[in-house]
């Protein structure tokens, strides 16, 4: 067994191989994750996300095909769940200091306003004066790219885990533990995962009180912009980790582990 971890996407990304395979395969997989980090970082002024946020409403923004893929999936999930999942929550995350203060003030969150639309030739049009953050989906997408990279390097079994959003492949099942909802140091569920992704969301690490005395968390209902404060842990299993990652926010915001959106994406959820 070989296990390595590097800090990317604001968390630790952990790659485990079942065998002592070539170190280069793991290094190449981390390079894919690094690429997603650079393209989709909220902080890095050269990222696609930062360029989108700086653009004027109505402008077209050229983005990398990977960023395009993530935006397309985000739009599909938003359509399927009535905007429970909404990338334009960045303004709320900034206001509550989950994202570092920016050079210019963020535009206020406007419920129901779509921040972007995609055209057929790889361009993104900014449709509202809003900022986006891909923190709720990019980790999952990065995991998917890393898995594909490992497979293309001939690795036959691996687990890639980006701070709790993970995906496994190989002939045998991988044991996965899910943190308990009210006690993150303890295990609340254990399962065996095979050729699938599992993502979990909960606010035990992010819930806090603002200086104004309001309880907030980094999980936001995309419809209202309100923090979700229910003490639950939501896990979603799907074929791809990007889908699993995004859908945890839908179940978190709706409180519905049988949300119709899940079936549309071939996913299943449980709440503990």
């Amino acid at each position: 067994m070989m296990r390595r971890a590097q800090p990317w996407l604001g968390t630790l990304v952990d790659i485990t191989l079942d065998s002592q395979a070539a170190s280069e395969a793991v290094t190449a997989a981390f390079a894919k994750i690094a690429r997603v980090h650079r393209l989709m970082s909220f902080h890095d002024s050269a990222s696609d996300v930062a360029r989108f946020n700086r653009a004027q409403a109505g402008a077209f923004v050229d983005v990398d095909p990977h960023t395009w893929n993530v935006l397309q999936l985000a739009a599909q999930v938003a359509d399927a769940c009535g905007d429970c999942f909404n990338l334009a929550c960045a303004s709320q995350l900034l206001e509550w200091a989950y994202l570092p203060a920016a050079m210019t003030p963020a535009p206020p969150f406007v419920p129901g306003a779509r921040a972007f639309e995609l055209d057929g030739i790889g361009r993104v049009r900014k449709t509202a004066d809003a900022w986006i953050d891909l923190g709720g989906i990019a980790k999952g997408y990065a995991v998917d790219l890393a898995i594909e990279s490992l497979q293309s390097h001939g690795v036959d079994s691996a687990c890639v885990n980006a701070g709790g959003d993970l995906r496994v492949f190989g002939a045998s099942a991988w044991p996965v533990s899910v943190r308990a909802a009210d006690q993150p140091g303890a295990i609340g569920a254990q399962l065996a995962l095979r050729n699938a992704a599992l993502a979990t969301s909960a606010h035990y690490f992010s819930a806090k009180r603002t200086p104004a005395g309001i309880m907030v968390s980094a999980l936001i209902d995309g419809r209202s912009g309100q923090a979700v404060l229910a003490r639950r842990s939501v896990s979603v299993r799907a074929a791809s980790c990007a889908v699993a990652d995004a859908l945890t926010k839908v179940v978190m915001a709706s409180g519905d582990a049988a949300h119709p959106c899940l079936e549309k994406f071939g996913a299943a959820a449980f709440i503990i």
Partner: protein
Amino acid sequence: MHRPLHWVLVAAGAASVPALATQYLTAEQSQTVMFPEATAFRRQDIALSTPQMQQVEKLAGISSRSVNWRVVAALKGDQLIGYVVLDDVVGKFELISYAVGLNLDASVRQVEILTYRESHGGEIRNPAWRRQFVGKRAQGGIAVGEGIANISGATLSCTHITDGVRRIAAIAQVVLAK
């Protein structure tokens, strides 16, 4: 340094929280992973002077924290090709050992996590508890990957590592860069 008592403590600590401690690479393995072309590694620890510490703080925008730093020079034949700096950071719940590979111009080549330990019982804040692990191999405690499942859960931020890497990059620029 390697007194028997030390390893007993590591084993006990690891046994109480098996799922929340992970050994990744040893320091030696991380050097080879980050500098596969190197033919030798030479320990070359540094001590920062007060003016150097001030420069580091100015560059990194955070405290330079320590005077002494664990540094390994990577060599290819007689030629110096880079450095590895070994460090530990403490978060709210986590104690993380990591290695930063640096090029000769002080740019960061790669970061590898060596060990990750998590505790929710407040031990993280206890220096005696931390000393069991800091700068040590987890040998006798946890083997690589042994019985440790992957954990799915809310994301724990790695701000402390990001800050730590920025601090080390500044140290490299002030002290090590050619």
